[in-house]
């Protein structure tokens, strides 16, 4: 079943007055340094531009943006957030066919919410009255949390379809996105004429840039943007740590049959007894999910997030 995700008609939908600019597809690329940074004579830690790049997911996102641009006859703008080395990602994108390049001058180690805010302010500075689609990778080369696209959709008031494992462009007006859900299930979302999409790396292979594309990309202008937007109202992470499920104490299984004991210990052959279907508005649904996870023992009541706090 295809569900339709529509824009929430938003509080922050991009509108820059009466100036109408043609629609653009935007793709966001995160350039990540892999080598050790060397301090230069000025003490600035210059990442070694030889060792770094974008993730397979970001490259797939660029490919989808280019395909969308062709299907919708719209220009493709690429935004990279990062230091000067991120220009490499932009030039590679230009070589592959992107029309406009924008670098948001920033460190790459900032929170997803700040990244999204910086990109949002950059989009406003572009003077784009209407961004049709934004395509992002599902993860960056340094893995990341994949949450930037969701923040972008929220800030821009656009519909979103995240974690795509397949995309059907059709004529580019209605874009169908196949998403992976838990338990091997799939969800098909239809975005009508606009939306934020994040894609997995396996969805597309970035086309090989033509020779003239590569040569032209060297002289292509990169517009610069310094983020100004303040985002004080958004909840922030106070500590960052790797997620580890809480250990649960179980009584040792009894019985003479080792296999049966193993089954009992791992619940391998048991169907999950948890699960319910409810129809609630988003806030109530979130509250219900946190409650259920707490009751089922997946969240520690003390260290877990409070049920009514915005979570990241």
């Amino acid at each position: 079943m295809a569900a339709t995700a529509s824009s929430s008609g938003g509080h922050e939908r991009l509108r820059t007055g009466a100036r109408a600019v043609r629609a653009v597809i935007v793709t966001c690329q995160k350039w990540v340094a892999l080598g050790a940074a060397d301090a230069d004579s000025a003490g600035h830690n210059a990442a070694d531009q030889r060792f770094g790049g974008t993730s397979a997911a970001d490259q797939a996102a660029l490919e989808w943006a280019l395909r969308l641009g062709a299907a919708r006859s719209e220009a493709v703008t690429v935004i990279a957030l990062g230091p000067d080395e991120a220009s490499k990602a932009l030039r590679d994108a230009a070589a592959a066919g992107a029309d406009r390049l924008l670098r948001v001058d920033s460190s790459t180690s900032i929170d997803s919410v700040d990244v999204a805010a910086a990109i949002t302010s950059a989009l406003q500075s572009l003077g784009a009255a209407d961004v049709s689609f934004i395509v992002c990778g599902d993860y960056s080369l340094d893995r990341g949390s994949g949450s930037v696209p969701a923040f972008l959709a929220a800030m821009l008031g656009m519909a979103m379809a995240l974690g795509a494992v397949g995309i059907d462009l059709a004529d580019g007006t209605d874009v169908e996105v196949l998403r992976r859900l838990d338990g091997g299930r799939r969800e098909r979302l239809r975005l009508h004429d606009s939306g934020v999409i994040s894609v997995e790396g396996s969805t597309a292979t970035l086309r090989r840039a033509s020779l003239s594309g590569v040569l032209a990309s060297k002289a292509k202008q990169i517009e610069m943007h310094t983020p100004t937007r303040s985002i004080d109202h958004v909840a922030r992470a106070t500590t960052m740590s790797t997620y580890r499920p809480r250990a649960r104490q179980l009584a040792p299984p009894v019985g003479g049959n080792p296999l049966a004991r193993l089954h009992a210990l791992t619940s391998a052959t048991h169907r999950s007894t948890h699960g319910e279907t409810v129809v609630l508005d988003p806030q109530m649904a979130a509250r219900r999910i946190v409650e259920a996870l707490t009751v089922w023992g997946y969240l520690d009541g003390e260290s877990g997030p409070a049920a009514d706090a915005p979570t990241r």
Partner: protein
Amino acid sequence: MSETDFDVVVVGAGPAGSCAALSLAKAGHSVLLVERGPFAGSKNMYGGVVYPRILDALIPNWWEEAPIQRWVTRRQTMVMTPTQSLTIDYRSDTWAKPPYNGATAYRPDFDFWLAGKAEAAGAQLICSTTVTGLLRDGHGRTIGVRTDRPDGDITARLVIACDGVNSFLAKEAGLYRRDVDANSFTLGVKETIALPTDVINERFGVRGREGADIEIIGCTGDVNGGGFIYTNLDTIGVGVVLKLSKLGAQRQRPEEIIANLKAHPSVAPLVEGGEVKEYSAHLIPEAGYDMIPTLAGDGLLIAGDAAGLCLAAGIWLEGVNFALASGMYAGDAAADALRSDDTSAAGLAGYRQRLERTFVLKDHAKLRHIPHLVLGDRLQQEYPQMVANIVERMFRVDNPRPKPGIRRILTQERRHAGIRWRDLAKDTWTAMRGFG
């Protein structure tokens, strides 16, 4: 001129290619430098020592900015048998000061830096792009190259092939000699081993940015070849160069030969406790002057290893400086040919003349017979044992026996090693002619 049309396209951003591009860009020509790796130097390896004095002409005071690991102040030549070794050790203060002599450097650093110089001078560099063949007109004249990119043809008035050993472009143009075969090449393999800087300093007797270079003969068992150990700041390069035909015949693995070298009592204390960071291998054009191909065709020049210009003469393994120089001279000759609007083979004859006037072909011509001598069975299998035995007897104190006369030791050990006077005289004469 279209955006894919250049005065010159240079294939390969190794030392030869970058110098060719640098010299042409300085002369004001439009140059495209095409490299298959993701950045210049990314696919390149060697033993570890460069002699960059030839860069004086292109990059004054290059030593102030080149990414050098250590300046070689200590040079050793070691003759080895499985249980013995004899080392000649030379150290110089002069080599620790500008303009220096040899230097150790990592190729992904050095080649990247040099290609950057070519770019800064105005050459365009494109990476991750492989040249797959030559474009030729109806008369067989080279008019550009084909790459593996969509719409990937590049036209140029001249192509300079600096694509390294076993150049497909030189072969395609029919410039290689017919008698060049597996015997003309060796396989070089190297382990890069990490050790703390102060441990390297202590083990190799160096300080600060000083470095050591050890060339070894007699360390490759039944496979003719040679070995080397070079010091970087916090790694050492340990490797061997192996005659291809022997390697195949003996059915030995190169990494086993390095393992044996590392286990030798004279080498083990130097590498002990190190962690292997990298293993790499590459072909070397070893046959010297006798394998040098025709250097110019209509619209085409070849330089560096592509032209077989690596000098591998036992105590010397120099390829980078020969590549730097031949690349630079190819660039200079190309600029002359472009100026006189004659890029035919005849118009490019200035290239060979430049090589003949300078160390590039002078050294090769002089040392013409040395590669055969050094990789020959006698020097590989018999002389190291004889020399080690002679030295062992000279220094052994066998009291109450009196010291034997050196002439007697020489005669006995020569006989013991089964070396005929005639062969010894012949080899000495070849060595004198080459090195003398």
